[in-house]
């Protein structure tokens, strides 16, 4: 585990508690994400599974947050809700001051395109497209013209130091390179949040460190990063760690407090 200097947190516990307990009020522009009492239930053939039982989270701009939890804690479900892939059964989800939890499928698609940058454990690149075209994909759905697209995709690839491999296909790239392409793709539309789901799960430890460095650089340069993981090692790279258990927030503190608590 690398040494990070202790920094002043972007948001305090008190502020967060305040903003999540004002149902109906649009949060001010400091907050990228505010969830109030998010519940998500599934009906599995008669039995009701409660994946989320009332999650209150507030994440400010430029925060680097890890959402941790064992399997079954609801972290994947929370990630899907935050990522606008799923709609909560009840509760409010405010993204950049807009109430997203009641939007239609088409509106959610638009939000995903513009505000969310996904990075997946299994990379999820189009196998038959070049790295450049993969990175261009969000811009295609944003309606950006071909020339502008190419330019912005190239810039994104430069940011992750992969501009030399633009015309390679995923099967011609190493795992670390593929994930960088995925990160470039996630950044290309300048999203509000970078949402990473176990981004190092399919990488060896050396490559994992490389990728975590990339996220660190992005966080330092001002990008809001949310990382979902079940590994404490990885979670400790973030500056704030939210731990979920059984569909609720168990703990939510700064990195230092987290590592101390679990005895790392």
């Amino acid at each position, binding site marked *: 585990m690398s040494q990070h200097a202790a920094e002043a947190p972007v948001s305090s516990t008190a502020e967060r508690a305040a903003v999540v307990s004002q149902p109906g009020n649009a949060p001010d522009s400091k907050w990228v994400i505010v969830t109030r009492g998010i519940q998500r239930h599934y009906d599995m053939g008669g039995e009701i599974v409660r994946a989320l039982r009332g999650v209150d989270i507030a994440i400010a701009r430029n925060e680097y947050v890890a959402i941790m939890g064992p399997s079954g804690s609801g972290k994947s479900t929370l990630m899907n809700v935050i990522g606008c892939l799923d709609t909560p059964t009840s509760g409010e989800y405010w993204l950049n001051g807009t109430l997203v939890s009641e939007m239609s499928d088409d509106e959610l698609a638009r939000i995903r395109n*513009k505000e969310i940058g996904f990075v997946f454990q299994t990379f*999820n690149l189009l196998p038959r497209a070049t790295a450049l075209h993969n990175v261009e994909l969000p811009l295609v*759905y944003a309606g950006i013209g071909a020339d502008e697209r190419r330019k912005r995709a190239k810039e994104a690839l430069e940011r992750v130091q992969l501009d030399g491999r633009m015309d390679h296909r995923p099967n011609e790239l190493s795992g670390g390179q593929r994930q960088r392409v995925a990160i470039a793709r996630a950044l290309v539309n300048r999203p509000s949040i970078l949402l990473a789901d176990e981004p190092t799960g399919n990488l060896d430890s050396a490559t994992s460190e490389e990728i975590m460095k990339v996220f660190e650089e992005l966080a330092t340069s001002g990008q809001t990063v949310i990382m979902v993981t079940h590994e404490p090692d990885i979670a400790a790279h973030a500056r704030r760690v939210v731990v979920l258990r059984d569909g609720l927030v168990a703990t939510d503190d700064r990195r230092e407090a987290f590592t101390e608590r679990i005895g790392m």
Partner: protein
Amino acid sequence: MPFYEAIRLAFAQIRVQKLKSFFTLLGVMIGVMFLIAVVSIVSGMGNYMKDELVGKLIALNSFELRQRPNLNIGDVNEAERRSWRTRPRIYEYDIPPVVAALAPGTLAAEYSSNNVSAESQYGTPRRVNAYGVSDQYFTIKRMDVALGRLPSPTEYALGSSVVVIGKDVQDHFFPNLDPLGRQIKLAGMPYTIIGVAETQGSAFGMSFDGFVVAPARSPIRRQLNPHGVVDALIVQSPTEAGINDNEERVREVMRARHQLHPEQKDDFTMETSDSALAFWKKIQGYLVLAGIALPAIGLVVGAIVIMNIMLVAVAERTREIGIRKALGARRRDILRQFLVESTTLATLGAAIGVAMGFGFAKIISALSPLPAAVELWSVLLGVSVGAGVGIIAGVYPASRAALLDPIAALRQE
């Protein structure tokens, strides 16, 4: 995702899976190929009937005054056919009064024909189609000689034993010889050959060139005009508009000569190319319908094939669809992507089918008497049909793709 992007994507997809794409569009390709071939052949037949067959048999802007219709391509019942045989014939003495009544500028020629035996020194005896004609015949039929000359006005007037022969007759009776000036015996009577006619071509495998043409009043009259009967009088009006006028004039004269009461129908026929073609037009419609059954089956099969292959494609590419949705593709983007893919595939197949259909039709017309015409509108028809099949076949798979839940889709594989 705008359309041109979707089309580019569709072509990229086709390029990646060339063999699979080929099999997908096979059904549409074959269906359209047969469609184009049928349309080409039927429309070629139509043109042929109009211009070549009937147009050659009945000259431009003309009608023939006859006892009864000649071109039996009509659906006539037996009773009517029997009634024709009881009609009075047209006689040589009917001709002058009829001709006198025609509008100025109208051409008219009598002709009668029969099979007669022909003999020469150089070929085995054979029967030929002999025509006895009056002097404007060649003009009306736009027939000229390739060798020699046409009969002169004097020869017509005197009924001289001169004859113009067709190419087949020359080939058989005077092989490798110059026939001009030589003698040919028609029904035992010697005729001098003064000309060889241009080749008239053939229709449905039957050659038109086995004929001889002589002045009507020449000795062969005994074979062609027994009792002074004339087969027909061709009347060629100067314009299309003049046809009706001349028909009326002829009708008036003939009805008077046959002493018909006003309520009695004509007991003679004035045969125009339209009436000859009327029946063809009727069966053309049925032919097209029947001929479309085969391609229709091909197209239905093609549609089913496309739909099934697209369903498989959607299933195989579920993860890809999930990725696209996660990145911001709306339902209609996914729908458009797959619909454009199936339509592009089908239209490509149709385009190839059109090309193959024309090739097929050309082969058929080269190897058989059936003609084939390349019609531009059938290209549009083929391509539109292809596109239509692509859209119909692709709707169900594309909507399944569009409705996929992205979370579940991302979990696939």
